[in-house]
């Protein structure tokens, strides 16, 4: 990458003044545990950037990339954001997670510059938590929870649900919020119990005992958790002989963790696109191949996709606005309503820079094999009050 930047910089110097590059700054984790989540989405974003550059650039200019390492550290993220300003970034792409992305996004906000979270799914990663120029291109966590509620009710006759929440991060709470909003609204459906655990609990035996002490096994268990706690919980739930359908959010997408519970069945999650080669949309599989060509491996989870989508949407807004200036591009982004992308339509408004409803692919794991089985869009968008946890 570095030589490429140097070459671009040299080109910029030798080229006429009006052909100055558009510079995108990536304040992402290149070390520490967040690196595993940021790198795939950043790679996807660069795939779209390469495509745009190959097609002649944006506003007639090439897009250049500068990067700074947050080191999976909040203070490091703020510093990375400021470093990118020094390097001339005109738009800021920040870490996947709200906590680690917000410090850099706030820096961009302070400079009236657009910031995009790579894949944050917390409503605060936008207007509500950063400011009016901040966006995320992923699908809100409560939408994922609500999608699971409605789908399981419609397609699997789920009536009695048990909610098991991991208190580790805000994302988990968002999944449960969406589920608990949607499920009781559905006909004949009720939440029969609720419990919490910590992601790094060595054992969740006490929580499982509580589930087993219900008279009847619940139809579904809404597990709101992320790795590694989610895999550990699933393994322990199945080991205790509980065979209920388990639902989770997109965070557990990917087959890399399935060895933790060999032969796992009746496990369902919503995704933005399938990495398993069975997505009905040709564009999705085309992207998977492009990703493999660039990195040598297919995406490990759906979290590469939002990176591609965000550059796509931002570039369209820039073309329409005719400038990269923050307020003008924001205005164009906010006009987008069901704007088509390779991974389904996307909308933004002046109230919400997130997806409060989305067409999601349903993936089910049967006998240890994940496969796309269905698609679902919730019947009503998740209201802002629910998103804000009120």
């Amino acid at each position, binding site marked *: 990458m570095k030589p490429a930047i140097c070459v671009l910089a040299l080109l910029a110097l030798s080229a006429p003044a009006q052909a100055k590059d558009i510079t995108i700054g990536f304040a992402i984790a290149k070390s520490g545990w967040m690196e595993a989540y940021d790198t795939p989405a950043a790679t996807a974003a660069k795939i779209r950037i390469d495509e745009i550059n190959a097609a002649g650039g944006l506003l007639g200019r090439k897009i250049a990339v500068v990067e700074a390492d947050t080191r999976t550290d909040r203070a490091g993220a703020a510093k990375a954001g400021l470093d990118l300003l020094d390097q001339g970034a005109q738009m800021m792409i920040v870490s996947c997670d709200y906590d680690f992305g917000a410090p850099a996004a706030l820096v961009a906000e302070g400079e009236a510059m657009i910031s995009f979270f790579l894949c944050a799914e917390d409503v605060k990663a936008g207007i509500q938590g950063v400011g009016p120029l901040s966006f995320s291109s992923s699908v809100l966590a409560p939408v994922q929870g609500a999608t699971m509620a409605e789908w399981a009710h419609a397609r699997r006759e789920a009536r009695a649900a048990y909610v098991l929440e991991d208190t580790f991060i805000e994302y988990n709470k968002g999944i449960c919020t969406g589920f608990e909003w949607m499920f009781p609204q559905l006909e004949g459906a009720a939440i029969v119990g609720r419990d919490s655990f910590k992601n790094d609990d060595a054992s969740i035996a*006490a929580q499982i005992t509580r589930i087993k002490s219900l008279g009847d096994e619940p139809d579904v268990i809404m597990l709101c958790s992320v790795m590694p706690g989610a895999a550990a919980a699933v393994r322990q739930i*199945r*080991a205790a002989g509980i065979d209920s359908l388990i639902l989770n959010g997109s965070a557990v997408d990917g087959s890399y963790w399935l060895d933790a519970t060999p032969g796992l069945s009746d496990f369902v999650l919503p995704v933005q696109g399938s990495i398993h080669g069975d997505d009905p949309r040709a564009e999705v599989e085309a992207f998977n191949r492009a990703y493999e060509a660039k990195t040598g491996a297919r995406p490990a989870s759906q979290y590469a996709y939002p990176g591609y989508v965000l550059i796509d949407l931002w570039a369209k807004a820039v073309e329409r606005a005719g400038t990269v200036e923050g307020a003008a591009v924001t205005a164009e982004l906010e006009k987008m309503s069901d704007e088509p992308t390779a991974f389904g339509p996307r909308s933004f408004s002046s109230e919400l820079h997130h997806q409060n409803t989305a067409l999601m692919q349903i993936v089910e794991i049967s006998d240890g094999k994940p496969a796309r089985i269905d698609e679902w869009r919730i019947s009503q968008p998740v209201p802002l009050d629910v998103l804000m946890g009120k």
Partner: protein
Amino acid sequence: MSLQLVFDALSLGGIYAIAALGIALIFGVMNLVNFAHGQFIACSVFALILPSADAVATMGLGALPAPLLIAAILAFGAGLAVAAEALVFRPLRNASPVALMVASFALGILLQNILLVAYGGRPKAVSLWPQLGSPVQVLSAQVPLLQLLVIGAVALILAGLALMLKRARVGLEMRAAAEDFDMARMLGVRANGVISGAFALSGALAAVVALVLVTQTGVADVRMGGQIMLVAFIATVVGGMGSLAGAVAAGLALGAASALLQAFLPVEARPFRDAFLYGLVILVLLFRPQGLFASVGAKPRV
């Protein structure tokens, strides 16, 4: 319900007890609060798989047949701890307990970051003995085979260790060294031998915790071991520093308290479970500063 709860408390408390024992052994012989113990656990977990940043893990030592695998992981844990002692703690033998503690923390950071570089930050699935994932009926309770096995293994290890400490020469020397290390040396007990022995044992115990954790959760994560280390550390103090039996008892007690709080706290209060747990710890310390299980005549050390 109640019998089930006993099993839950035992399986969690058993893990804490073994981890606490690993910390108490080292504290006893060299006044070191070993904050790297959590990373000894994490390293032992990762030794099961091959170093690679790929999302899907390939088994390393984990591919061995069970008896060999257990022996290899225990040896790995012991070897890691002994190496840490020789390279880091032996040169610091005469440093203050604070300096030792900070050094152990630095060692922990070192190991954690080496794991991050070698394996990447994404948690990995480790399928160790999947056939254990089925429930069995014990009296009125339906218990995962895994849980039974954990309880059985903990009981077996504690019994074996107790026997070793009671009967074997090195066990006698370790117990004496844990009580009064300088006195033991004045009677000809070799410091290096006992300390290396304690580290080897402690590392092997960390490997046991690693195996139990992996069979229980099926995942390997760079950050795992940290939370257990903290609880074990507190158990060591609550049990009475230098008392190995106390560490085990307090580890079991903390596990049981945690399971009971989880079972009986109202749903809104459950996320605050650990705050209640640590509040209990402070109360216990206020009423028994020398620890719950220290003998009455024991003088405070440090």
